[in-house]
């Protein structure tokens, strides 16, 4: 097996909401063009960790981050880093589909426009390319200029993925992207993830054990703010080293 590149590396990452420590000394190597699943019970810090990777945690008042996160070997917490540029490189798909109350076209065009692309043709190309990559194009091609809010939840979530793809990120963070979707829409997203993995590094937080097992290459188990165990998904699910991981993945805990 060929050596995989590390895309993101966290070292000694601590995070605090006020005086509550939500992340405790997280160390992890996230591999390039792989799907990494973060699992664990609610409130264990996995979503917080996800948000530490594009620095959206710091939008919340009274929070504090310590430690280091490297993206391609570059410290993202160094003073003076271009946070706006970082967030373009590290895109995010949220738990609930959250399209803007604009047309389908305008939703996908939002990113390219804020990044300063003004050529109409170029934006149209990006919109089409992103919608195709998100496996949504065939369903919406004839109604690009109707409201995104008329789509089904599953379509809305794929639209949100297309919206992220349009800014050409390198990493896509997904925070329980299927928790609001029915099984068929979930399956579509999972298929899409396999497709996207060829070009992007994906980190997904999920409560769904089967989803983690089905889709991911690497898995990390969070408990009470700590990363208890991290390794290839197959190992974590079939030969967990920690008793608590075993209890969780077999459904006896959590």
């Amino acid at each position, binding site marked *: 097996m060929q050596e995989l590149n590390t895309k993101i590396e966290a070292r000694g990452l601590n995070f605090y909401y006020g005086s509550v420590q939500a992340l405790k000394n997280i160390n992890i190597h996230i591999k390039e063009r792989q799907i990494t699943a973060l699992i664990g019970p609610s409130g264990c810090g996995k979503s917080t960790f996800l948000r530490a990777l594009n620095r959206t945690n710091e939008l919340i008042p009274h929070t504090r981050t310590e430690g280091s996160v490297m993206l391609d070997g570059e410290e993202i917490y160094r003073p003076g880093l271009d946070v*706006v540029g970082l967030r*373009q490189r590290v895109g995010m798909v949220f738990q609930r589909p959250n399209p803007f109350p604009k047309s389908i076209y305008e939703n996908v065009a939002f990113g390219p426009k*804020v990044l300063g692309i003004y050529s109409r043709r170029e934006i149209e190309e990006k919109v089409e390319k992103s919608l195709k990559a998100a496996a949504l194009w065939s369903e919406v091609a004839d109604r690009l200029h109707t409201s995104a809010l008329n789509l089904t939840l599953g379509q809305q979530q794929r639209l949100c993925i297309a919206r992220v793809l349009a800014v050409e990120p390198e990493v896509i963070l997904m925070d329980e992207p299927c928790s609001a979707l029915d099984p068929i829409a979930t399956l579509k997203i999972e298929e899409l993830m396999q497709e996207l993995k060829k070009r992007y590094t994906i980190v997904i937080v999920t409560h769904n054990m089967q989803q983690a097992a089905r889709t991911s290459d690497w898995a990390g188990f969070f408990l009470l703010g700590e990363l208890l165990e991290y390794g290839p998904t197959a190992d974590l699910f079939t030969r967990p080293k920690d008793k608590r991981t075993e209890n969780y993945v077999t459904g006896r805990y959590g």
Partner: protein
Amino acid sequence: MISNRTRYLTQNVAKVLIWTAALLTIGVMMLILFQVLAEGLPVLHPRFFLDSPKNMGREGGILSTIVGTFALTLVAIVFAAPLGVGTAIFLREYTRETRISRIIRFGTDCLAGVPSIIFGLFGFVFFVIFLNMGWSILSGGLTLAAMILPTIISTAEEAIKTIPYTYREVSFSLGGTRWQTVTRTILPSAIPGIFTGIILSVGRSIGETAAVILTAGSSLVMPTSLFSPIRTMSVHFYILAREGISMEMAYGTGAALILLVLIVNTAANWLLNRYIRHRV
């Protein structure tokens, strides 16, 4: 335990009281409208709108006061809307709850409760005398701007507050700057609410008398610049009635004022609905 009989009785009493309240309110409103329109409408010939007042307003029309009303309101909105919306954006998007934001909010709340005559006095002392603007459209407009600023700030703040947090989150996560987030996601969604606040303020500006009489004067001459003194319709109404010049013309002005407010509100609603429809 309450018996069913008591429950139904209470229910019926409550129904009667609530209907009475609603009907009384509507009744009083209709009465005022009916009285002013009944007395005023007969005066409203086209000439009434197209001629300027003659002989202190006993004869002629009210054209110069209509122009005065529009000019004053326009100046007030042009100054107050950007300032107010800007302050609201600052308070909600550019600062967290700090001492400064609390002071600004406390200040606007206090200003909102100050009677308009106090604004008039301030405008008289500050704009008219100290800044030497004299009785003028500018002095009056700036005074009105100060008066409506709190309304615009608080309605705009409320409108911005209702925008879901996720819009901001998404915009930031797509690489949007704070300014882009404000102009591309927050304002488009908040505009209906902001607009409503501005329309409320237009209504107050059109109807304001006390603050205007002290700062814009009561000249019946057609204004030629921002530094001309003017008389607004409501001031005209007040002077005609109070000095016993002509109750007939006073009612005519009153009726015209009511129609004007009606037209402005209808037009504003139409615009707003159009905007909402066209946003998909």
